[in-house]
């Protein structure tokens, strides 16, 4: 008995799971190498950035190896006895994360955040957080969900306070960790409720149990009301945890203070990587836990099928689905509007970007609501909506990276982070200025820049789903786009039209920084003109996500 179990475990781990986790293993090895390189005096002279860069590139290479045959060819398998899930979405989203990691390593070196002496600290935290995000992107089990979130969060708290001796930084880090701990606790409570009510911690099994529970018939039975209430509470609590990670209203209050207090580079990491991972995790939760017709039919042979077939076409978990759609749609609308309204009056660039991040979290949640609504009858449409999320997130990666990198570059040359101080940048530092303006207009979502296509795909998903919630979201999204013009354009106006300050000398960033900004900004335009490649990749990544 025991030897077979061990053998099976060994086979599963060595034969199936580890080869498919090469990027994660590389990240772990890099972390260890970074730490060990400090011990012998001979190795201390090596700049840690080289170790970090090699590690990140190797990890990205391993991931590209996973995607060798194209994303569509990746068969979903469960790894580590069901803890993780290996599928196209996981590969695509980790690809985004690892590519972003490479860009982050270069950026933090160029802007001087990771110096030769304490670069190790920064990179170890960065890699640790990315590792956690990779786990989030592949979670298939409530335990890995919680584990991934914690692994991603704890290093992030420290990253926010990485610049020692600055009161604002310290305050931001403390605020972030207190909020984060509270949100994690709340989410853990929701997770335990879910596990207790449904008797499993494996996400697909949770979905089956929820289908068997017949929420629709339970709802009519007064004696079972307690179960329904507990389920609803569990759903709300889990979503609270997700909302915190996404900086979605009403759990967004941490974002402006944290972004303003943290260095701009860390802001880029939090706003892009953390959010992408949280989005993928949310997609996983809603696609696996909320049962959809196709997978239930396939998974419950015999009695199950006839029982399901006897039911109305509303599906076994229609009330649960409608409940989650309502929650997410409301959160999306409120987040988007609050973020944009608050951004209007900001004077600090990092706070402005923080509110813009919040607003974009709202836009990104919209197609998720559409996906859940569509999953009932149109699995292909639901996968399309999920693809819209990924397309948006991919474009957003370049936009926000460029914006924050420009903020960091200007901080180093002008020593200022308020928007007024950006006056006349186009004349004194044209590359930075053009990159920043492209990012702003892209975030606004004007074609032909990459931000527009994500937005168009998201709105398309809303229209596909139809119904009052989706039309409400469509109206909110469209009006918010017009609203957001005011503050994005204000930045562009200050940079391009206002006169530079008298004492502004030569303030171009160094050549490598300019190159990095150009590399970050070029995809905004190029992917905007030819977005098909990215759109198809996102589509393949999400194909079959909803059965």
């Amino acid at each position, binding site marked *: 008995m025991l030897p077979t179990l061990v053998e099976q475990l060994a086979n599963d781990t060595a034969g199936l799971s580890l080869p498919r986790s090469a990027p994660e293993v590389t990240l772990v090895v890099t972390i260890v190498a970074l730490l060990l390189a400090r011990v012998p005096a001979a190795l201390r002279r090596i700049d840690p950035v080289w170790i970090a860069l090699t590690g990140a590139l190797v990890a990205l290479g391993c991931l590209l190896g996973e995607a060798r045959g194209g994303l569509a060819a990746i068969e979903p398998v469960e790894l580590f006895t069901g803890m993780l899930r290996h599928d196209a979405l996981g590969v695509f989203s980790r690809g985004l994360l690892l590519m972003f990691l490479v860009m982050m390593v270069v950026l933090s070196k160029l802007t001087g955040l990771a110096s030769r002496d304490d670069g190790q600290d920064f990179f170890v935290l960065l890699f640790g957080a990315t590792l956690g995000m990779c786990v989030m992107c592949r979670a298939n089990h409530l335990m890995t969900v919680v584990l991934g979130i914690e692994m991603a969060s704890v290093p992030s708290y420290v990253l926010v306070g990485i610049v020692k001796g600055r009161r604002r930084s310290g305050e931001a880090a403390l605020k972030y960790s207190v909020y984060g701990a509270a949100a994690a606790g709340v989410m853990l409570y929701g997770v335990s409720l879910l596990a207790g009510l449904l008797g499993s911690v494996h996400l697909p099994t949770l979905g089956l149990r929820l289908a068997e529970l017949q929420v629709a018939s339970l709802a009519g039975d007064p004696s079972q009301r307690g179960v329904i209430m507990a389920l609803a509470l569990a759903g709300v609590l889990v979503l609270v945890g997700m909302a915190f990670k996404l900086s979605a209203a009403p759990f967004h209050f941490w974002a402006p203070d944290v972004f303003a207090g943290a260095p701009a580079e860390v802001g880029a990491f939090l706003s892009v990587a953390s959010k992408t991972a949280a989005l993928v995790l949310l997609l996983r939760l809603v696609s696996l836990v909320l049962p959809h017709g196709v997978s239930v039919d396939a998974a419950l042979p015999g009695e199950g099928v006839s029982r399901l077939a006897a039911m109305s076409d509303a599906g076994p978990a229609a009330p649960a689905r409608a409940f989650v759609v309502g929650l997410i749609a409301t959160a999306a609308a409120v987040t988007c509007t609050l973020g944009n309204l608050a951004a209007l009056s900001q004077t600090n660039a990092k706070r402005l970007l923080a509110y813009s991040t919040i607003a974009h979290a709202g836009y990104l949640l919209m197609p998720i609501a559409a996906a859940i609504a569509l999953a009932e009858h*149109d699995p292909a449409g639901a996968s399309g909506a999920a*693809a819209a999320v990924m397309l948006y997130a991919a474009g957003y990666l370049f936009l926000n990276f460029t914006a924050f990198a420009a903020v960091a570059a200007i901080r180093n040359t002008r020593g200022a982070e308020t928007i007024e101080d950006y006056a006349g940048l186009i004349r004194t530092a044209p590359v930075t200025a053009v990159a920043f303006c492209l990012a702003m*207009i892209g975030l606004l979502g*004007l*074609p*032909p820049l990459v931000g*527009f*296509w994500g937005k*168009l*795909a998201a*709105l*398309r998903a*809303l*229209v*596909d789903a*139809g119904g009052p919630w989706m*039309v409400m979201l*469509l*109206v909110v999204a*469209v*009006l918010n*786009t*017009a609203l957001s*013009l*005011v503050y994005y*354009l204000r930045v562009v*106006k200050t940079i*391009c*039209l206002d006169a530079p300050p008298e004492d502004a000398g030569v303030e171009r960033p160094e050549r490598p920084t300019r190159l990095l900004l150009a590399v970050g900004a070029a995809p905004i335009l190029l992917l905007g003109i030819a*977005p*098909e490649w990215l*759109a*198809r990749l*996102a*589509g393949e990544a999400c194909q079959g996500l909803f059965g």
Partner: protein
Amino acid sequence: MNDHALTLLVLLPAAAACAMALVPKSAGGAAKKLTLATTALVALIAWSLAFDGRAGGAGLSHIVSAPWIPSLGVQFFLGVDGVSLPLVILTASLSFLAALASLGVERHPRGYCALLLLLQTGMLGVFLALDFVVFYVFWELILVPMYLLIAVWGGDGGRRAALKYFIYTLAGSVLMLGAGLLLYGQSDLTRLAPADLAECGVMGPDAAKPHASGMVLAEWLASDDPLAERYVDAEAAGAPLRTFNLSAMARLARSTDVFTSKSWGGHNLAWWAFVLLAVGLAIKLPAVPLHTWLPDAHTEAPTPVSMLLAGVMLKLGGYGLVRIAWPVCPEAARDLAFVVAVVGVVGLFWGALAAMAQTDFKRLVAYSSVSHMGYVLIGLAAGTLGADAWALGATGAVFQMVAHGVTSAGLFFAVGVIYERVHHRDLNQLGGLMNRMPTASGLALVLALASLGLPCLCGFVGELLVLLPAWTFNPYLAAAAASVTVLIAAYTLRAVRLAYYGPEYRGPNGDRLTPVTPRELAVLIPLAVAAVVLGVRPGIVTEVAEPALVAAGQPFAHPHPNLPGMTPVADAADARRTTR
């Protein structure tokens, strides 16, 4: 096979704009010459469309169709028909004249030229695009260059005016985007007949030619077009195949009931889409009360940009109404015709009265644009009565757009000629210019008279064509619209009297009133000639536009389907009731 004349038309200016980055910083003159050469080439290509005998019928020609973003259902789909052809030629020609007028720009000439060329790409793209998303992309492409052109190269209040322009226009375009997505969400290509599919370019450029060799559905389905594969899949699954194809949307509205599903507030989906489209496009047109961005933007913009703003930009709104709003949502257009007509008449009055009160010559011309665009709305509203009314009203609206493009661009340039010399535009301090610069003043007079609608000049034809169906539509409104011509005459003649006549010039900088230069004449003369030619022989536009308009207006040819046997006038009265 794709005919790449249109691709060239759209991409040539964009390529030249990119090439500006290669021009050395000191070589501003080279940048301006490159711009002039590019716009000249584009204008040549645009004119060649009119003479190769293919464009201008009822159907589309010169189609370019290529998958751009199949994952999102976006097709790079360009084509030209009788409605767009005159406007394309107008745009290309005015862009050339604007480039000619820009030779005097001294400030950052490279940036200026690049933005002007991008602007041209955007404008031509809007008139040529037949896919909603492509249309929208070009539409938005105009925003940023125009904003910067007004803000950087404009007058003292340029920044405020440019910001106002940007906010108004973006608000309008997101409404349009919402409407487009609503329509997209109900569209279904599988419901169209094969002949319709072929004609609206879904089956590729060859099948859309009028005498195509009969490329049938089966042949297309067997081809490796990604759209064909999706069509097969959709047909097999019984699922709808959504489309952004504007031509297909219009056909769907005509032959199926996809857009008429009941939706909120007792109106159907097309009604809501129409309201969004009409409001969004009315901002660009502009219609009162959404016009307030226009006088500021026009006044502050540099002269060549003012020419394009008035000559082309305002036509984008009207073109959008003719191309999308009316054909795709005919029922709603008929329901709301009275509201649209009232807005048009109010705009006419408002613009004319405001123009009478102006002392700034340029602002006066700007308000006259607001006024003239009212005719477009009246013509389109009256056109919903029936086939004949549509043929007159819509053709009148399109003609009015072309005519106004010629006269307003000319007048803005004429103001620019004065401003460049005396550095003010105050009508009270001008006067006597007829003596000092007779040639320029004479040409400006021709354009002003054309603008006020003197018979035998181009302004008259549009007004007449619009007013004819308006009488049947609603005599009171028509009478009101006709009476505005008196106001128009009053403010135009007042401006002419104050600026050009009078004994002598007494304002500041009188010594700088030099005679008009050959370069300025090269801009003014073609516009004045066009004003006369269009007035004497309006058929060159109307004969081209009418077949395409009649084809697009087929829904208006039948009596109201819900209320059979009603006379047009009663129909209009009914429209009034429903809208109250």
